């Protein structure tokens, strides 16, 4: 085959669609980490968002309510992570992992309870695919790019963005100039939950029209990798998400067309992720207080 055959228009569009859930989750993670809370539970939040979106759409018959359901689930999950890691100062990796396990278990458990059949929900009668523009998945795609731009402006041009960055680097310094560290972190973690949940909703009501267990397939972790690869900046994260989307796509495009076992092809995105993070980034510096609970009495 001609190697150029794979560089088609559809490669670009598929790359973008594969990147969209990563962008939502990655930008979500960015809010959390920039304020100093490591968010390893993006995966779990995406799952919860995907599931809630399907449930709400199923019972209301309205995709907007489905999206709202995802946002509510994301708010709740973000709040949960916030309570654990900000108020109770639980180790953020441990707390986040617990949330991931909780989300995977809860969604799987709830499928048969809500829909009567285990494993996956029945397909929805409506998906974003079959509606007009504002109800099409394109809406969510454009919104993702808009979100990146707005996040960039928020972080670097506004007073609140400066405060978020300050809290993530040196919370005590922020505290001494009157910034509420806990409130800032809570809001950021909740934003993080909301965006990751929308990323999950894109997968369920945006693309497949149903929810199946574990359907996010580690995209939350890849989004986290993209965030690191993108050096904790919105534009860098966007670039990294597109790159990972491309790798994912390359794998499916090349499958069957090159004489390599499909198992190896499936590894491509993950191998490239490791290579990218290990080598290409070089010294990427996380926010200095990322992962460290803030305790005002500590000197």
């Amino acid at each position, binding site marked *: 085959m001609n190697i150029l055959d794979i560089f088609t228009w559809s490669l670009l569009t598929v790359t973008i669609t594969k990147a969209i859930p990563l962008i939502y989750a990655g930008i979500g993670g960015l809010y959390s980490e920039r304020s100093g809370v490591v968010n390893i539970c993006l995966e779990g939040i995406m799952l919860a968002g995907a599931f809630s979106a399907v449930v709400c759409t199923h019972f209301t018959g309205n995709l907007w309510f489905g999206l709202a359901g995802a946002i509510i689930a994301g708010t709740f999950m973000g709040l949960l992570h916030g309570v654990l890691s900000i108020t109770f100062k639980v180790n953020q990796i441990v707390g986040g992992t617990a949330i991931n396990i909780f989300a995977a278990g809860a969604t799987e458990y709830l499928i048969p309870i809500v829909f009567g059949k285990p494993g996956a929900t029945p397909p929805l009668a409506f998906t974003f695919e079959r509606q007009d523009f504002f109800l099409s998945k394109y809406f969510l795609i454009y919104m993702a790019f808009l979100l990146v731009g707005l996040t960039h402006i928020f972080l670097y*041009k*506004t*007073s*609140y963005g*400066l*405060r978020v*960055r*300050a809290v993530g*680097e*040196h919370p*005590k*310094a*922020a*505290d*001494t*100039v*009157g*910034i509420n560290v806990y409130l800032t972190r809570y809001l950021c973690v909740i934003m993080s939950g909301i965006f990751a949940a929308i990323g999950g909703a894109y997968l369920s009501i945006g693309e497949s029209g149903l929810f199946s267990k574990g359907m996010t397939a580690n995209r939350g972790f890849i989004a986290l990798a993209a965030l690191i690869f993108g050096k904790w900046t919105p534009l860098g994260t966007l670039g990294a998400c597109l790159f990972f989307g491309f790798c994912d796509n390359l794998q499916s495009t090349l499958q069957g067309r090159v004489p390599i076992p499909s198992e190896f092809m499936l590894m491509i995105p993950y191998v490239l992720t490791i290579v990218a993070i290990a080598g290409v980034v070089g010294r990427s*510096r996380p926010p*200095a207080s990322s992962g460290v609970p803030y305790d*005002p009495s500590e*000197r």
Partner: protein
Amino acid sequence: MKVVEMMGITKEFPGIKANENVSFHLNKGEILALVGENGAGKSTLMNILYGLYQPESGEIYIQEKPVVIKDPNTAISLGIGMVHQHFMLIPPLTVTENIILGSEPVDGGIFINIDKASRKVKDISEQYGLKIDPFARIESISVGMQQRVEILKTLYRGAEILILDEPTAVLTPQEIKELFTIMRVLIEKGKSIIIITHKLDEVKEISDRIVVLRHGKIMGEALTSEVSTSQIASMMVGRDVVFRIKKETIEPGEVVLDVHNVTACDDRGLPALQGITFNVRAGEIVGIAGVDGNGQTELVEAITGLRSVKSGKISLKGKEITNLPPRKIIETGLGHIPEDRHKRGLVLNFSVAENFVLMEYYKSPFAKWINLSYRAINDFAQKLIGRFDVRTPGKETLVRSLSGGNQQKIIIAREIVRNPNILIASQPTRGLDVGAIEFVQENLLEQRRNGKAILLVSLELEEIMNLSDRILVIYEGSIVGEVSGEEATRDKIGIMMTGVKGEEEKGEKCVGAETVLPFVQNDEL
């Protein structure tokens, strides 16, 4: 006019009364020095004034009006500004961003007007003679500059009352002079300043009035011009303090530690030691002076085997120890009082007894096959607690709960009883109060009397000058000069600490490397 008056302030932390019925006032246009030992409650009192802590009882008056300062925002709006001992600056952000943080000039409610902000920063800095680049990043400017940014932060918020918490601790003698000039300009422009310090010569130089705290209580107050340093010191400690340490002349013996042309890198892989050569002889204290972050940490780590040496040679009593594992080096006869006693000197969650045997737990009589003999360990601990007067409820007490001075006693006891040929003391009195400092210094001199070699690394020039027989000045990883203990003056060493080589003045041979590498900034605040 009294710009600040605190009356009957009491603040308790679990187990300690940090402030007990403290009353004092600050007049407009004066510099008030708040002096006292570590743990006397100076910082607590100021943190109450700045709204970071709430007192259990007491009243505060600002500009003669009663106020309740519930958080730093309230303090700021009352015109109080505080420069903390550990700077509250965010390294990756710019000077302007750090200054405006929390009260940013905005357009449309949220968008930072960075031009307006930097113009204002520039205006204020010129007004008070604080030269600063508003667009420089904090991580790329010197500590002295960072302190200016902290002062600008308070002025930007309209502070009339400035609290400076141990402002000179991190500065070179030259930077201290500049700071004092700035403080005088501030007073001229009508500000009032409270300076927290325990350095008495600085108190004498800069302050108008002093207030002395001890164990959370006011011990006295006086006009600076009317008291002597030793009077202040005895008020601080509660007894007379010996300032001049008696040091008998000892003819140094054979070379114990020989460091030859050693190079090493710091944690980021940048050159930290650039060809260091010196030796320490028996019965001699060699002091390493320098501004923090010029390679002192790396030098000590290289000698003790905690950092790999890239080139050069280190020998102890003629035996090469370069890049040997730390245990091998210790067994060759090296004692180490690490600069960070919490990180390297002790296991905080171990008991006093266990910490005493950290170096020798694997040897008889403490170890029998794979078992530890707690009887031997406890006996040993009991003996040391008595001999070194460690104030602890018992040998089973967790080291975490002891005071800094007693923690340091444990380390010193442990290192000294092993009878090492060389003792590396890295900032051995950091954070200790006057009493504990006396103990540490007395023990170092005792070791010297016993004919041991001692390498003393300290940021306290006073300490280096008091104790050392020879003083080496380190700058950017090179030894830039050597002065003998008797000839040392603050100015002479201070100038060398900024990198000016000492050989023109003294005619001494400079042993530093010839190549000048880019200045390695110390980014740890």
